[in-house]
């Protein structure tokens, strides 16, 4: 029996987003996926120089516009109105995915439905439900230098989302480098999954119990880091 989340949904998302922000190195180019990953931008520490890429053709996403600044020709990949930072550039979708595929993006933070112990990611389709399309996710997982998946550790039914192998159709095979959930930070390594951090309020045993895949516990495991 797996425990339900100990925190309300908003604070859980905030905790994950804040922890994910620590993955962003100053001076890097970053693509944030649609949904919870977009929230990470709200927590970027002052002093960090980060250029956010939007796959619809913008390098240098700024904050959401004030009402009088809204420009219908300027959106992010989630189709939300945004602004552009000083020094931003616009380009075509082909150029955008050339810079993604070409390995020029340092980090992509994406949402996930399931991740396997080999780093397979499923996040675009649930068979039997209407398929909406993969958008840019299948390109991003092969292009960015580092892929971090952020998601709840278990689904609404309390079932594990970190599995021996994914049950849902894949977005990419062997592509994930790090998983950040409301409960733990787990790295995907050649030997399998390595537990490197446990969130406040959880024990190592609770993480192992709520993870379907086998976990190696890192020798430098840190407890209660976020």
């Amino acid at each position: 029996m797996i425990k339900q989340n100990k925190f309300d949904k908003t604070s859980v998302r905030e905790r994950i987003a804040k922890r994910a922000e620590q993955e962003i190195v100053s001076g890097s180019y970053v693509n944030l996926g649609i949904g919870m990953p977009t929230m990470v931008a709200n927590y970027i520490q002052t002093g960090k120089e980060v250029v956010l890429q939007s796959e619809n053709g913008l390098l240098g996403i700024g904050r959401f516009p004030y009402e009088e600044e809204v420009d219908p020709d300027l959106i992010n990949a989630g189709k939300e109105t945004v602004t552009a930072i000083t020094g931003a550039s616009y380009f075509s979708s082909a150029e955008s995915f050339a810079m993604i595929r070409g390995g020029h993006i340092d980090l992509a933070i994406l949402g996930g439905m399931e991740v396997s112990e080999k780093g397979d990611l499923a996040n675009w389709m649930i068979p039997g439900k209407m398929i909406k399309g993969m958008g840019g996710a299948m390109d991003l997982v092969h292009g960015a230098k580092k892929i971090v998946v952020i998601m709840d550790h278990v689904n609404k039914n309390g079932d594990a989302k970190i599995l021996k192998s994914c049950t849902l159709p894949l977005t990419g095979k062997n592509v994930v480098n790090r998983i950040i959930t409301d409960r733990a930070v787990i790295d995907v390594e050649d030997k399998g999954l390595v537990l490197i951090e446990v969130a406040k309020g959880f024990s190592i045993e609770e993480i192992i119990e709520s993870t379907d895949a086998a976990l190696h516990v890192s020798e430098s495991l840190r407890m209660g880091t976020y």
Partner: protein
Amino acid sequence: MKQIHTSFHEAVKDITDGSTIMVGGFGLVGIPENLILALRDSEVKHLTVISNNCGVDDWGLGLLLQNKQIDKMIGSYVGENKEFERQVLSGELEVELVPQGTLAERIRAGGAGIPAFYTPAGVGTPIAEGIEVRTFDNKEYLLQTALKADFSLVRAAVGDKMGNLIYRKTAQNFNPMIAAAGNVTIAEVEELVEPGTLPPAQIHTPGIYVQRLIEGKQEKRIEKLTITQHA
């Protein structure tokens, strides 16, 4: 040299039943609104439409769906549209989902005379079924073929009468590749100017790719208005 139209209906009147058309835009940004409205009014049927998205229920390409003018849609994300879902589930509409970067590159290849290329996107996923896989430097890639269209419909901020186009901000998106991949490319421009007005070094789409131009006023509907409140 170029056909300059004043009627959107005239501009699209030779698009016939069964045509393959490409339409620029990402979401509702950068779509050729008036050309789509004219196509809706033309009642042309059995279209194959290549576009990143398929509009929303009551705007953009969603209008052609509502009117049951599309037989097949090739795109990367179609989740904003309930009528789309209904038609797919009922078998009225065929859909081919393509990773967004692959879609952009297939269209680019179509306009650039490259029949196919390899990309890592989609390896090991459902879209790889039946597609040639080849390994380069120990990494697997999928063979993807170029896309072309009978007619390409694009929108630019400004165009000159030589067909040169400049796009505005993120309204560029798929428009430049789509302009090059159509047998006949029709450009809806917010402003049509005389040759020599645009700085040659700033042209996004050189005029060679454009056959027809027409000036029009767009609504520019906003799909998701997100704002920062003043403190």
